[in-house]
């Protein structure tokens, strides 16, 4: 049943398959097939044998951190929602796929939707939520249909709905679609969209865990995190923590793309080196120059830094992030200035327009990069890029905005020679851009070391 998921999602062998094991083996449209593979065992164990607090302790023991990019400890988030007194609490599975090129969530939703639903129900039980919502990006039509089917089947089998598995827990499941914008994956933007408004982020605090959708405590969890929750409950927290580093345990779905021989989706233990992940994808095609780690807001690492472990802390220290789980390898024929402009332009185009630093600031960043690319920079353009980037990050309304300048800052630090060649001599070191050439600058550009 290799054709159960869209052909655009290629799952690569190797690494440590946990969430990906069942994809292609279970029938995504059949509850019976999932249960045969041991599915919903974790939910059964949680609801019938464990108290909610024990479930949270188990997740805490496993050391699971949010896979949506922030890396926030999952157990801590659940505890806040659990401890907030309210008659009604909501949990949302985030499948908005903010970064259009990351494949992890989509692979899970199409290949094994019940795994997400199981994790969602466990999380709802642990946090004391009576409503569980699956929010899916609207262009993933197959995923929507399968999740609708999965939730309906689970409710019919009394795994959700009223009196789950004969206990006095009730969790109402529903699947809703969300718009396909980059910002829509941000948790407060998702909450705005679900309340019938524009999908724009809200100011925090109040955090959604205390006051979210319809004004009640709302827990927004990434689909991959929820799949891990289901895995932990059906295996054990020790098994989960057996791989990974001290602070970042477990596995992570990583989408490897760009100049690699076999682009696709891999699952690796956190802490695997970037070079090893690239090798799982068939190795770099030609000579790798750098990798953009973390999607549109990630950072560039040079090929010499491919030994960096892929975990939250190490990447952040290097200026990159786990982010959407995207890893883009570029070769020597790629201009880093132009790449930085591409990512900055993506952030500018996808800005929802609510926060001024993002709406106008990212646009100004693109304009400064355009001037550098055209070899007509103003003397302070590099200083402007750095200062404006810092201000955007400092005054950001949402996380996506805070990380937006990442590609610019990291390429400025690591590939300053390319910036210099473009700005001062109008020449592209990678030979990729149609550089204007000639017209050397009268004074050197400030801010490049």
């Amino acid at each position, binding site marked *: 049943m290799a054709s159960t998921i*869209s*052909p*655009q*999602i*290629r799952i690569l062998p190797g690494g440590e398959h946990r969430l990906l094991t069942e994809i292609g083996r279970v029938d995504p449209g059949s509850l019976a097939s999932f249960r045969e593979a041991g599915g919903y065992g974790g939910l059964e164990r949680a609801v019938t044998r464990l108290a909610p607090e024990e479930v949270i302790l188990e997740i805490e023991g496993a050391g699971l951190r949010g896979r949506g990019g922030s890396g926030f400890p999952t157990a801590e988030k659940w505890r806040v929602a659990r401890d907030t007194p309210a008659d009604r609490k909501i949990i949302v599975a985030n499948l908005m796929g903010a*970064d*259009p*090129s990351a*494949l992890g969530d*989509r692979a899970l939703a199409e290949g094994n939707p019940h795994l997400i639903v199981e994790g969602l129900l466990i999380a709802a039980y642990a946090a004391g939520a009576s409503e569980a*919502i699956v929010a899916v990006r*609207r*262009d*993933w039509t197959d995923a929507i249909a399968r999740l609708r089917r999965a939730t309906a089947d689970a409710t019919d089998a009394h795994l959700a709905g009223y009196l789950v598995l004969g206990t006095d827990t009730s969790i109402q499941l*529903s699947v*809703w*679609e*969300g*718009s*396909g*914008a*980059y*910002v*829509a994956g941000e948790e407060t933007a998702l909450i705005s*969209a*679900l*309340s*019938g*408004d*524009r*999908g*724009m982020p809200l100011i925090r605090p109040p955090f959604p865990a205390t006051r979210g959708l319809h004004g009640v405590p709302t827990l927004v969890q990434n689909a991959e995190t929820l799949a891990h929750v289901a895995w932990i409950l059906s295996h054990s927290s020790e098994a989960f923590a057996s791989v990974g580093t001290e602070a970042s345990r477990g596995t992570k779905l990583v*989408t490897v*793309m*760009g*100049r690699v021989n076999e*682009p*696709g*989706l891999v699952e690796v233990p956190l802490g695997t080196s970037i070079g090893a992940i690239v090798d799982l994808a068939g190795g770099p095609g030609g000579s790798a120059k750098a990798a*953009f780690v973390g*999607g*549109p807001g990630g950072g560039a690492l040079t090929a010499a830094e491919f030994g960096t472990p892929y975990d939250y802390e190490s990447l952040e220290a290097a200026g990159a992030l786990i982010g959407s789980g*995207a890893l*883009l390898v*570029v070769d020597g024929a*790629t201009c880093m200035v132009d*790449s930085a402009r*591409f*990512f900055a332009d*993506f952030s500018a185009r*996808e800005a*929802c*327009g609510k926060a001024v630093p993002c709406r106008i600031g990212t646009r100004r960043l693109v304009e400064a990069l355009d001037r550098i690319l055209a070899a007509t920079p103003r003397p302070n353009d590099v200083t402007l890029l750095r200062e404006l980037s810092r201000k955007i990050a400092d005054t950001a309304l949402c996380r996506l905005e805070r990380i937006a300048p990442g590609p610019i800052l990291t390429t400025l630090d690591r590939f300053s020679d390319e910036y210099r060649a473009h700005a001062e001599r109008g020449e592209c070191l990678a030979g990729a851009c149609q550089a204007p050439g000639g017209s050397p600058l009268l004074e050197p550009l400030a801010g490049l070391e």
Partner: protein
Amino acid sequence: MAFPGAGIAKGMAQTFRNFFAPKVTRQYPEERPQMPERWRGRLDLIYDPFGEHKCEVCFQCAQVCPVEAIDMSGFDTQGNRIRYGMPEIYDERRDPNAYRRAGQPARPMRNPARWDESVDTPWVDETVDAFGGRPEALVAIFRAVEERYGYLPERALRRISDRMTIHWAQVFGAAGLGGFRLLPVAGHVVTVCDCAACRFAGGPSLLDAIRDELGIEVGEETADGGITLEVGSDVGAGASSPAIRIDTLVYGPLDPEKARHLVSERRAAAARVAEGTPA
């Protein structure tokens, strides 16, 4: 009547009048002048130093206006015509004669907004009711309407707003930010993916080839109305990059020659259908 010092004398006269006038200090925040209840100040569009409107047509003012008093019509930053208001009001402005009367050359609209769109309102109502009118379903309802009409007609959005009792500005904003089509589109839509994966796997060369093949720019339609060319990052190309999407099907990985071939085939098929000959 000009004699030296007349101006000074006139000015000083005013000064003396004020000098002996009673002095009144209005304790503004505590004592407020009598104003109509809904008065929020005078609306004014401000200009930048180059004489351009600073208004970005972001609709935020329309969204917060409590009585829906603000309607808009204009061009967004990409040059697309957008409007936000009753068709009977804006019909006049869309009329090329209105340009001519204003002393500007009459020009055809790039995206003529259709105000005579006919919408099956009972069907829209049914669709809304099928979801129980829940606000979470807004995007799902948009998708159903877009599937039927190819875009979101304004009348349908108005109806959804009425039926769901969600503010019209919110419905419109959610549709716009959600990336839905607000204007009808001609023929088949070819979308070249510009997600990061495609971009670094040769997406720009596909775009060049297709542009060359069709002889149109991004956002335009071919003269026979068979194909509209677009660029989008929501194709979902994944591991098949670089990819293009024709209507709803994703094709990839492609090289420029294959892309050219695919697009010309589709265009020829569309022409055959238009002529009525069996494909």
